[in-house]
């Protein structure tokens, strides 16, 4: 497993909606070895304030040359990224962490909420291309329609069946995307999820109940992303702490205590 500290070059910054920006980064070293579910640590500035890198899921990786991250503007780090222009440098460390295990051949369901959709597109592009894989159902939830238009098209192009839900009802189901999961679950062999913790808690609960394998990509504040600072602890099963950056960010739903 190779990791790199690489000065990527911004190739494009596409505004998918008011709050969602997609950065295309020339980063051949990282792109060459990235796997779905892994992430990068990006320097969000050129001074010592902010000091720490921010973690971002790898959203796509192209022809071993470029990768994409999807950025939701939350605070100043993400705002900085959204304002970068083509040609700018962006220091990355990656690919980091344990990704999704997409070796399944049965039908799968990907369920993402908000910015949690980011790693699922890379995963969708890497699902085994056996006939059964037409049976890839993707459930995408967000606050409003604008965030989903471009993204749901892209999942469809990978041959996935897409269902959507929005908080404001402007697209698809009016309400939580997790509400759509029970109808989809029967026949699904594995569920992959990323999104708000509450959503993933619901998804994990439904899967565990139905005894369906579930992998979830978790978040924690990180200083290093390398397993060195031990800052990104979460409550794991068996009364242990897991480190999101190293043991995760993708965990088997059974490894986690969802409501500590």
């Amino acid at each position, binding site marked *: 497993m190779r990791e790199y500290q690489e000065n990527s070059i911004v190739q494009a910054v596409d505004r998918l909606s008011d709050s969602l920006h997609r950065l295309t980064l020339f980063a051949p070293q990282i792109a060459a070895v990235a796997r779905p579910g892994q992430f990068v640590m990006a320097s969000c500035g050129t001074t010592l304030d902010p000091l720490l890198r921010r973690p971002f899921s790898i959203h796509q990786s192209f022809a071993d040359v470029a990768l994409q991250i999807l950025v939701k503007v939350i605070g100043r780090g993400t705002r900085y990224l959204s304002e970068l222009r083509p040609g700018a440098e962006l220091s990355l460390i990656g690919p980091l962490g344990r990704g999704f295990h997409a070796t399944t051949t049965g039908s799968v369901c990907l369920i993402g909420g908000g910015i949690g959709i980011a790693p699922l597109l890379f995963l969708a592009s890497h699902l085994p291309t056996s006939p059964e894989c037409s049976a890839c159902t993707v459930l995408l939830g967000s606050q409003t329609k604008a965030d989903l238009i471009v993204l749901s098209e892209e999942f469809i192009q990978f041959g996935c069946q897409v269902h959507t839900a929005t908080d404001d009802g402007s697209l698809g189901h009016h309400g939580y995307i997790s509400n759509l999961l029970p109808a989809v679950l029967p026949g699904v062999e594995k569920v992959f999820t990323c999104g708000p913790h509450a959503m993933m808690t619901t998804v994990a609960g439904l899967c565990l109940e139905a005894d369906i394998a579930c992998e979830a990509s978790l978040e924690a504040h990180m200083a290093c992303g*390398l397993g*060195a600072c*031990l800052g990104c602890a979460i409550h794991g099963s068996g009364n242990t702490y897991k480190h999101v950056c190293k043991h995760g960010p993708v965990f088997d739903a059974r490894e986690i205590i969802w409501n500590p």
Partner: protein
Amino acid sequence: MEPLSTAPPPEMNISLGPLHLANPVMTASGTFGYGAEFINLVDLKRLGALVVKGISLEPRPGNPPPRIVETSCGMLNAIGLENVGLDRFIHQKMPFLRTCRSRIIVNILGDSIDEYALLAEKLTQVAGIDGLEINISCPNVKKGGVAFGTVPEMAAAVTLAVKNATDLPVIVKLSPNVTDVTVMAKAAEESGADAVSLINTLIGMAIDIHTRKPKLANIIGGLSGPAIKPIALRMVWQVARTVSIPVVGIGGIGTAEDAIEFLLAGASAVQVGTANFYNPAAAEQICTGIEAYLNRQGASSVHEIIGTLQTTF
């Protein structure tokens, strides 16, 4: 463009008492894991020494999350001394560390003097360990939680116990959360410490105004990073003028310029901490940068700059 230098590369090796390092740039405890975490990003053999995460007799789970918060030019951590414990350290971590061709210093911590001594004794029998660094910032459980790091007599007692238990070089790591750090340094020196290193983190806090809760589950945590550099540099300068054992400078060092400030102030070596997180290449860049500085200054050895701060204007 600078002309290609024809001068021989400057001497970078330094000694912390009996401990000889190829260069003065070490990585600080707790910020470099057990070394292996950086194998892809850092050429470990270029490090003057690698100080591993603090080890206790038994494994420690650490504090509940959240454990870290970013602050202005710094960060707070309340890891809670999570570590694999002595046995797993020896069996799972040392085999890798023995291969990395850097000096290995083990940072130790305990709740009592006996624990420190026992750790020292056991680690002395392990091949591949070049020195011990005593983290005295922990509270003494037996003495009701008074920190070893703030009472000179207690620091002296720990130092003495460790020195008696080992023939490895012993560095005592000082806490900055004291009125007079030189008193602590003298206590360590008089008890036989081979060197002192400073500073450990300053105690700090951050509050989430929306939840009205501390941002750390542990309420308080240790402040590190560039924010604390001026304080660390002042303390290193004070200690270097007070003790005659070598001093290792720590605190907010992220560039060669930072490191050189500490060397000029009297540090024989430096440790890079938080910078490893935001720039894993920092320690190597610092080493190269010190060499370049020495060349520019026409110095043939790092010793020619250590402690050469001019304080008359």
